[in-house]
């Protein structure tokens, strides 16, 4: 191949470039997707106007955006934490279902228990459920050197089929024909924080998790250890960091937080365990973690942006008829554009001197 250009590493990118790269990627993705909106016979500006106004411009729209924000922030933080240590957790989706199942067990069986007991119990059990499902691949990685990308991915489907098995079999709702569990106890339903909306307890809990992530990331020596493990596990080991323990701990935390996403959707929205508890939130979490640059504030902003896209696409669909799967395409294209953007913050292309 005739190589007239060469790629070279550039000096560490300045802060402003790291912050603007995701913003530019978002704009680029929206621009690319406008071609598809045009294909649907709609003026892209008109379409995007309704997307953003629909998601942000009314009390109902904004509250629904916050409702979607909750699971996405949980999974975004979960993935970002794991990725910080380069524990490539693709399994937030399965951990979400594991958490949902664990919380369902208590939510359904503790009828009559007061909210102050049952809701914390659901959060704790959901955390443990998700953590357990993440710790298996972490142990396989650290003890047997089995790569976690494929095991966490397989785990998603094992857990989903297990959920489906429980919800059509032993845990089936005796009242309906749907694949869902019995309703959780009325006291297990999360309180609504803003009357007249669906804004529930899960949203502040998700923000709390993001805050914990912020403390780990910016203020703790453990956060420093995680970054060191991510940068160079061998060197970290020589520096006296217990890499195995670090990876297992981060898997527990990451899986646990992903599990909380399941608890939040169960207790705050559906009140039944369902086979469609998640609309790919675990995978969207990967997009969010990357778009947020694995930084707590960035991840929070990215989760909010993806909530806007997700909620707004529904409104755009109702008003203009642009099919709502456009939101998935925007998500994926944003990630693709971001990878291009990240490339240009790390490298530059020079013309080769003859």
């Amino acid at each position, binding site marked *: 191949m005739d190589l007239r250009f060469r790629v070279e590493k550039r000096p560490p990118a300045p802060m402003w470039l790291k912050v603007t790269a995701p913003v530019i990627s978002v704009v680029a993705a929206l621009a690319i997707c406008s071609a598809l909106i045009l294909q649907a016979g709609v003026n892209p500006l008109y379409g995007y106007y309704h997307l953003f106004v629909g998601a942000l411009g009314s009390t109902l729209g904004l509250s629904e955006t916050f409702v979607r924000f909750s699971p996405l922030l949980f999974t975004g933080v979960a993935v970002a934490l794991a990725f910080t240590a380069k524990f*490539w957790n693709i399994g937030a989706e399965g951990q979400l279902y594991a958490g949902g199942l664990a919380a369902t067990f208590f939510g359904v069986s503790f009828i009559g228990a007061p909210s102050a007991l049952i809701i914390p119990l659901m959060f704790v059990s959901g955390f443990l459920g998700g953590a357990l499902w993440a710790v298996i691949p972490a142990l396989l990685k650290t003890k047997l050197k089995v790569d976690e*990308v494929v095991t966490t*991915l397989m785990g998603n489907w094992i857990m989903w089929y297990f959920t489906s098995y429980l919800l059509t079999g032993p845990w089936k709702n005796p009242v309906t024909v749907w694949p869902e569990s019995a309703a959780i106890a009325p006291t297990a339903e999360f309180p609504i924080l803003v009357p007249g909306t669906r804004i529930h307890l899960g949203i502040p809990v998700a923000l709390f998790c993001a805050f914990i992530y912020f403390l780990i990331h910016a203020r703790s020596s453990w956060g420093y250890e995680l970054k060191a493990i991510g940068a160079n596990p061998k060197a970290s080991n020589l520096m006296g960091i217990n890499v195995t323990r670090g990876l297992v701990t981060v898997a527990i935390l990451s899986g646990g937080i992903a599990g909380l996403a399941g608890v939040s959707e169960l207790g705050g929205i559906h009140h039944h365990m369902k086979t469609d508890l998640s609309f790919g939130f675990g995978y969207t979490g990967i997009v969010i973690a990357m778009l947020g640059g694995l930084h707590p504030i960035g991840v929070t902003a990215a989760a909010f942006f993806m909530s806007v896209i997700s909620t707004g696409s529904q409104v755009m669909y109702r008003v203009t008829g642009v099919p709502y*799967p*456009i939101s998935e395409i925007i998500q994926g294209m944003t990630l693709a554009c971001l990878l291009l953007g990240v490339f240009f913050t790390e490298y530059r292309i020079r013309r080769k001197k003859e």
Partner: protein
Amino acid sequence: MSEPVITLAFAVSVLAMTFRMAVPLIFGTVGEAFAERSGVLNLGIEGMMLVGASVGYLVSYHVGDNWAGVAAAALAGAAMGLLMAFLTVSLGAQQHVAGIGTTIVGSGLSFYIFRLGVPLVSGIPPTVTSFPELNIPLLTDIPILGPIFFHHQALVYVALAVVVISAFIFYRTRFGLIIRAVGENPRAADTAGIDVFRVRYVCLILAGALTAVGGSWLSIAQSRFFLPNMTYGRGWICIALVVFGYWSPLRILGGALLFGGIDALQLSLQAVGVEIPYQLFLMLPYVVTILALIAVSRRAKAPAALLKPYRREE
């Protein structure tokens, strides 16, 4: 006493169905083997298969020719492979991140063009006419063996041919040697004058095209229409199978028939009204794969450069 469910006719129909269930797995996994052998884990596979299913159906419906549908699916899949190659090879992005991104794009795109491309009649898409089953003189008429092996749609035999051809490419051609060299030690391959980037591009484009043909089988031949997310994790099964088949086409064929057989058995049992926890059957491929990965990890059979972006200057 009720009639016995497991009759000879039942067994023959399950075995014949095994081939049909295995087709998308064979195409997808052989494609994945090309990608992984060259050093790229292609997690875009689920999205590529969905795009193949959607494009194949749409073109078949509008043109009225199934083979045009299959060809269009291959082209669309190749384009998805190109996207994956650009992200992972040219940009050197993390392969699983780029792959999940490609899958999300493909999943959304397949649904989107489907909604724009056909009118829904009370929520149900119009169907296409499936491929005819081949009648091979003499062979199809053999009792038992005939219906199992020699009475399928042409794509079944194309899938089997793809296995043989790719095994030949991997083990008997210079190009196969080059692919394996690039997947094992890209730097050494580069030093030896092999264009690592070009080889990976070719493999990913091929992976996309093959996977998408597997997807078009689902929509054109099997259900005769497209539904959102109709692949139902079959792409991920291919990721599983390539491990289970130790990256070798012939073993992959065995694995695809095994997993296809499990699927055919649970569907057939459900169809005759046997109550089974079918989810436990469907879970098996994923469980088996994790066990296979544990076995592989001790023997280090995976391409050594898998998941590692290659950059010349580092």
